[in-house]
């Protein structure tokens, strides 16, 4: 199967999501210089696409970075406590919007699952991802990963 989504498109989607919903102005999200360090205390959010062409889109970062993302999305003050429910909901919504826009690039329509959040993304049926973006959001390493099954 040929790859239906280009890396540049995934980057553009991620950039748009962060620019519109998370950051007050552009420039906070950029490519990570060098190899992305493996997270020590990871948190992952993902959605799956079901249909003729299926896939998964995930956002993975340190849990502390996910807290910062949730604060930014919810327009909370720096250091303000994020409840576990808000963390799951906000971080999951980031994956949902990224995944929904990736789904729109697929040549066939599918359905999107509700977002899930856990310490690790479950193994994908197709094995290796087709795109892995290594990103720097406000100094935090952050990965956006796409699988097509």
């Amino acid at each position, binding site marked *: 199967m040929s790859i239906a989504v280009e890396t540049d498109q995934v980057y553009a989607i991620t950039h*748009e*999501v962060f*620019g*519109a*919903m998370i950051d007050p102005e552009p420039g906070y999200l950029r490519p990570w210089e060098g190899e992305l360090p493996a997270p020590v205390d990871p948190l992952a959010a993902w959605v799956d696409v079901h249909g003729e062409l299926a896939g998964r889109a995930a956002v993975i970062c340190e849990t502390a970075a996910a807290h910062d993302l*949730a604060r930014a*999305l*919810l*327009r909370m003050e720096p250091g303000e406590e994020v409840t576990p*429910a*808000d963390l799951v*909901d*906000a971080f*999951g*919504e980031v994956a*949902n*919007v990224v*995944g*929904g*826009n990736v*789904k*729109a690039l697929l040549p066939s*329509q599918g*359905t*999107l699952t*509700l977002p899930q959040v856990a310490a690790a993304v479950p193994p994908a049926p197709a094995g290796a991802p087709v795109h892995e973006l290594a990103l720097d959001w406000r100094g935090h390493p952050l990965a956006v990963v796409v699988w097509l099954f």
Partner: protein
Amino acid sequence: MRALVIDDSRTMRRIVAHTLEELGFSTVQAGDGQEALDVLESGDQVDLACIDWNMPVMDGLTFVTQVRSRQEWRSITLMMVTTESEHGQIVRALAAGAHEYLIKPFTPDAIRDKLDLLGLLPLEEPV
């Protein structure tokens, strides 16, 4: 004016509701289509509903269909606010009776522009 914000994500409800309140709307929220129908059944007078597509219990498209089947809710303006951006999905929602379609991610200005198109602006902004 009063707006009903329907999304299973509390985060997204907060963002949409905050934007609408800054534009002068009062808001009520629901976590899925069935909860939203319950709000309308309770007699809450709503002028605008902002509706996510993918939700548990009852999705946004079913909610739109249900609202359009009831004469007493004909005046409610229905705007989908969703990640579902394929052309076919947009056509389905508009055919079911949605008036406008806003794709996530969106900026507050994008919501304002859509409401302007729908003739729901300008409202008197809150002090």
